[in-house]
């Protein structure tokens, strides 16, 4: 009797557990507007990492922006229109992955709430939310990746971007993968979880406050002893790179995906040189 019960339970358990065969294969990359416009190599790094993990990657051509500029300015009507456009663009993929916690969080945490008065659209928004991921969380938590094959000779400090950290729980995943990079040493700063002061339009609407925040961040980065700063969101990276460089700091700034994909030899953010990835 015992054996029969055990067999029944184990069969159910084994069917319910996620298996490699059940892992999403057909992935849509949500490039994000900042990566598209200012740092295409981050998109190619993401593609490389996803393909190495065994995914087939598509880049749906009708994607533009996730709508955060409108959402955070209080323009709900425009946000809904843009969300509907994104939902349509990513229809039918097993998973949608963004090299950004901020844009990933917008899709997975904020879209459903935009359609409280439209059950049909809300169902589609929830469906998209359920299969949208930030890149690091997707690689580690969904695809089960533990290590990457890459080399980076340097001392790296990792900044936790706010949405990734607090909305999506991205914290250990990028650090685990970074630790598997040959030649790389992780040096934590004192307050990696404190906001860098970017905040989308915040940084130009309240430049003095933003400057005070990023000034404090750059001091923390410098005190870590690292020669390279990485993070998972390009907005934060451009803000911190811009401040470090204005201060004359020699610290290089890169997206975490670039370092993990072995593209750490590209010119860093805000540094001159040809940037088309090989």
């Amino acid at each position, binding site marked *: 009797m015992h054996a029969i019960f055990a067999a029944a339970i184990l069969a159910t358990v084994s069917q319910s557990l996620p298996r490699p065969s059940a892992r999403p294969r057909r992935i849509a990359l949500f*490039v994000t507007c900042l*990566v*598209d*416009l*200012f*740092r*295409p*190599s981050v*998109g*190619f790094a993401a593609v490389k990492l996803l393909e190495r993990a065994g995914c087939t990657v598509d*880049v749906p051509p*009708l*994607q*533009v922006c996730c709508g955060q500029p*409108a959402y*955070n*300015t*209080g*323009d709900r009507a*425009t946000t809904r*229109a*843009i969300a509907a456009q994104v939902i349509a663009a990513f229809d039918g993929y097993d998973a949608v992955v963004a090299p950004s916690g901020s844009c990933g969080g917008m899709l997975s945490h904020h879209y459903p709430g935009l359609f409280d008065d439209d059950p049909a659209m809300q169902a589609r928004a929830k469906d998209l939310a359920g299969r949208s991921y930030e890149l690091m969380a997707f690689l580690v938590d969904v695809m089960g990746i533990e290590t990457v094959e890459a080399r980076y000779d340097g001392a790296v400090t990792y900044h936790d971007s*706010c*949405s990734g950290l*607090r909305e999506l729980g991205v914290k250990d995943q990028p650090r685990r993968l970074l630790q598997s990079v040959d030649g790389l040493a992780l040096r934590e700063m004192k307050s990696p*979880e*404190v*906001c860098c*002061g970017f*905040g989308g339009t*915040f*940084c*130009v*609407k*309240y*430049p*003095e*406050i*933003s*400057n*005070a*925040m*990023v000034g*404090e961040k750059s001091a923390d980065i410098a005190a870590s002893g690292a020669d390279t700063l990485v993070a998972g969101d390009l907005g934060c990276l*451009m*803000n911190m*790179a*811009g*401040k470090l*460089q*204005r201060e004359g700091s020699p610290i290089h700034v890169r997206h975490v995906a670039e370092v993990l994909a072995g593209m750490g030899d*590209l*010119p860093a*953010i*805000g*540094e*001159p*040189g040809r*940037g*088309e990835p090989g």
Partner: protein
Amino acid sequence: MESTAHHFRQNVGTALADPNLQDSLAKLKVGFSERRRQAAERLPEFEALRDRARDIKNHTLANLDFYLEEFERKVLALGGHVHWAPTAADARRIIGELCRGAGARTVAKSKSMVAEEIALNEHLEEIGIEPIETDLGEYIIQLRREPPSHIIAPAVHLTKDQVADTFLEHHRKLGFTKRLTERNDLVAEARYVLRQKFVDADVGLTGANFLVAETGSSMLVTNEGNADLSNTLPRMHIVLASIEKVIPTLEDAAVLLRVLARSATGQESSAYTTLNTGPKRPGDLDGPEHYHVVLLDNGRSGVLGTEMQEILRCIRCGACMNHCPVYGAIGGHAYGWVYPGPLGAVLTPQLIGVEDAGNLPNASTFCGRCESVCPVRIPLPKLMRHWREREFERHLTPTAVRQGLALWSFVARRPRLYRRLAGLANRMLALFGRAEGRYRGLPLASGWTRFRDFPAPPAGGTFHAQWSRRRP
């Protein structure tokens, strides 16, 4: 209190240029958050308690009328009095009349943010009654005639040296002519000066952390014991509290107290927790002869049932401001009114009008640290966003922002047009920035380039352009 929230930008400039303030904030940012983190870690059930605290407040708000009436019944049965004050002016008038009726010349006050909200001190002075702040921080800023800059640490913006100067200036006439430099000496001097004032006071006025409907008690936590002197020595005790402070039972209070002190200062509990339950009874050795509770609405009932209701869960621990990087940069005075930080960014527009306080909910990166530490799990960024939505609907958003957004959204909703324009912008920025890799100045982006370089994109085109070349 007179609001300067509409001068937010000027306030920010002043705050950032104040070296004493920046010194004080540097200490606050590390101290409070570190102590809260350790306190939370020491208590395995802390997260579960936060859920319970949230649920208790939600339940109370859903039945607020019931619990307020229950509280009133209990207070009356104890021989106390309850006064309902729809507005700040009503509360001022009621308290003024009570003090006059008691023949009061001085009122000993323990720290109350609601008293700040209704500008009680100014009113008492106008009618010839001297209010005496007995909380050390409140006492210091009363001497300096400054508003509080933090809801639990009202003088946190000041350095020890500034306090020493203030005491020397004001205590000289009482015979204290030596400028003190040690923290303990400053506290001892204030204690000495205040002690006689407690004894002389005719009325004691306190706020309340909680009003317990089950027993009719008002509950107060302090670290200085000043509230206990304020409410036991004078003949009359007036409790001033806003309506959302009521909770059902003592059991509920126990849950809320466990998250309150840990979230606020990282203490397991505050040094003093006091329950006031009606006036002195026959046979009691001490206590006030007269006991009054003033229940203030001042716009809160209008928040019930709206998308902002969750802000009424707030138990005023101050954790949101202690963890807010914006508060950490500019301090409390820049917010321009009684409640600073994320709490103020949501509550101030409600209480004094979003026309006046429109900057407050906008001056946030939505980093979410406030929500992650709030003991009653108020989704502060979401509520700030709701304010932005209301501002946008009412055309209060600045014209330049609206126009920029309209242009951007026109393009963002046309992917093919967007792609062409993005390609153009990318090539221009790459071309002119190729020598240095970045810009030190950019037209239309001075908000950025005033303080930061702007990274130029590398040559080769946008991601989408490169992708379609490689994988057609």
